[in-house]
């Protein structure tokens, strides 16, 4: 299984069609112009599906950048997130 970072990059690239691969790890609500509320829902739904997790409503407001989401995923205790 591919590591969570690579999988998360794939999610970002799919959702933000204008985002360049080299900029993904620096992406945040502030830096990506397309990151609006609809993109946010799409991104988090893709992440839920890709990592087989359920994000709680409380989590949603804080997941505002690539790094924060990656940190969150590392903290989730699931085999879908950890490389096998």
């Amino acid at each position, binding site marked *: 299984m591919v590591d969570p970072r690579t999988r998360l990059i*794939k999610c970002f690239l*799919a959702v933000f*069609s204008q985002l360049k691969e080299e900029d993904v790890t620096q992406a945040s609500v502030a830096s990506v112009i397309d990151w609006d509320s609809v993109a946010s*829902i799409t991104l988090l*739904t893709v992440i839920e*599906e890709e990592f087989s997790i359920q994000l709680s*409503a409380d989590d949603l407001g804080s997941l505002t950048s690539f790094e924060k989401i990656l940190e969150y995923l590392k903290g989730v205790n699931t085999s879908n997130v950890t490389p096998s």
Partner: protein
Amino acid sequence: MKLLEALEIVKKGNLQKSEGTEFFLACGFTPLHLQTFLAAQLQLLLPQRRIELQTGLYGDLLGNISSLIKGTAEAAAVVIEWQDLDPRLGIRRLGGWGPAKLPEILENLRAQTERIRQAIEATTAKVSLAISLPTLPLPPLSSPPGWRASAFEFALRGCLDSLGAELAQDARVRVLNPQRLDALSSPSERLDVKSEVVNGFPYRLHHTSVLAELLARLIQNPQPRKGLVTDLDDTLWSGILGEVGLEGISWDLDHHSHIHGLYQQMLRTLAEEGVLIGVASKNDPALVNGALQKKNLILGRDQIFPVEAHWGPKSESLHRILKAWNVGAESVVFIDDSPLDLAEVKAAFPEIECVAFPKDDPQAAYQLFETLRDLFGKQTVSEEDSIRLESLRRASALREQNQGATHSTDSFLEQAGAHLTLNYKKLPPDPRALDLVNKTNQFNLNGRRFTDVSWLRYLNDPDSFTVLAAYEDKFGPLGKIAVLAGREEGRVLLIDIWVMSCRAFSRRIEHSLIDHLFDRFPCEEIAFEFAAMPRNGPIQDFFAGFLGQPLSPRLRLSRKLFMEKRPPLFIDVKEIGNG
């Protein structure tokens, strides 16, 4: 399909340089992932086009449907949910579910259903529609326990069933089949409460994906296959004819071979709908002839043409059957219980859909019948469907006669008593014309295809004319077999659509059509928007007969040259309709 895959397909599709094709998704909820999945599914089905999928306003299904009249979408998906019919049937509004509310909800639903019906009816002249009636479970608002049906729920569903039944009769409206949706998406796994409450999007991802796939297929409206070639032993019947003899083969309950009877019944149904049924069997021809004459055979002997029974390879049989039917391999399905024969045919004709007959697995056989319905399904059965097989038999006899020395072609055609009826009436459109334009490959001027809407636009152009030709001779009618369309440009007649069914070959109908055009229009030259394609050899041969090779993209045929080179014509031509 996963959402990630859908996003990647959409992203890749957006990079296409081709001109965008506009579609519309009309729904009352936030379109969100349904928009993504539908765009992706359309992109997969229409890979040459760049898909542009527009959406409307949240909470205004009726307004979104009505907006299609002024829009430019080629086709639209209309997705109706219970909350669009009365907001209290959803979970985002708190208008009350109590017993006192139910009659009012039902009344409201009836009125809204009628408004939606009217909006759809007003739209269909402009855009073709794929419609999904409510797919979500009703909330627990009526008093009986969940395992007991309530009269209220039956009344609600009855309204929607009536709407669906009415819409399904309109050729330009395609209603999603709830039975197929149920098979692919469990009703209890459809509603996403969190997503609906937080985002206003009511579907779980799997349901969204399935719904989008079926809607895209409704929009694409694939052309049905034309012919089915079946094996006999352990397929059309149970038993090996050469081993058990005429009395040993069976297709009934008594012999535990009923599934073969059902298969025959399915083939008979397809034959009655105009599907060509042929036989390819490694067998003794005399025995096969005897078996096919059996009176209790459900598939009629007269519904099978041709029968290829010999000991040679099946691919040889398929080659001859394709020739007799005059259709391309991609239009044909081959069914056999032998994996070896299936592989041999597939190797020779990769475009043929080769399907195994699961003789020992009735459940799989039943699924095969559903697959056949998908491959050959069509909205309506036309007059042409009912006479296709007979006209093919006649065409085959005609070819054989032409090859013989008894009669010359001229004398045969002269005695045929042929009549060609040319209908210039453009509106309302005859669905057969579009059917011919989109299905015909061999005698096709340029392969141009149309959607319902673009065809309507073409017909509405006041400068254009169209001719739908129907042929009949003393052997019987061939039905509507050719379409010719174009416009006058000064002293030149420009033809940009010309197709003719392969059933109509060898009768000089094409010559008679051009002869008629020179007679009807005051032109000295006809220009044809011609494009050579791998499969339009017959029309290339027709033009080469006058103009020689190579053929240029805009062919010009002068009156003088045509009259000098055309063969004798014996068809009586009659014109009806005035455009």
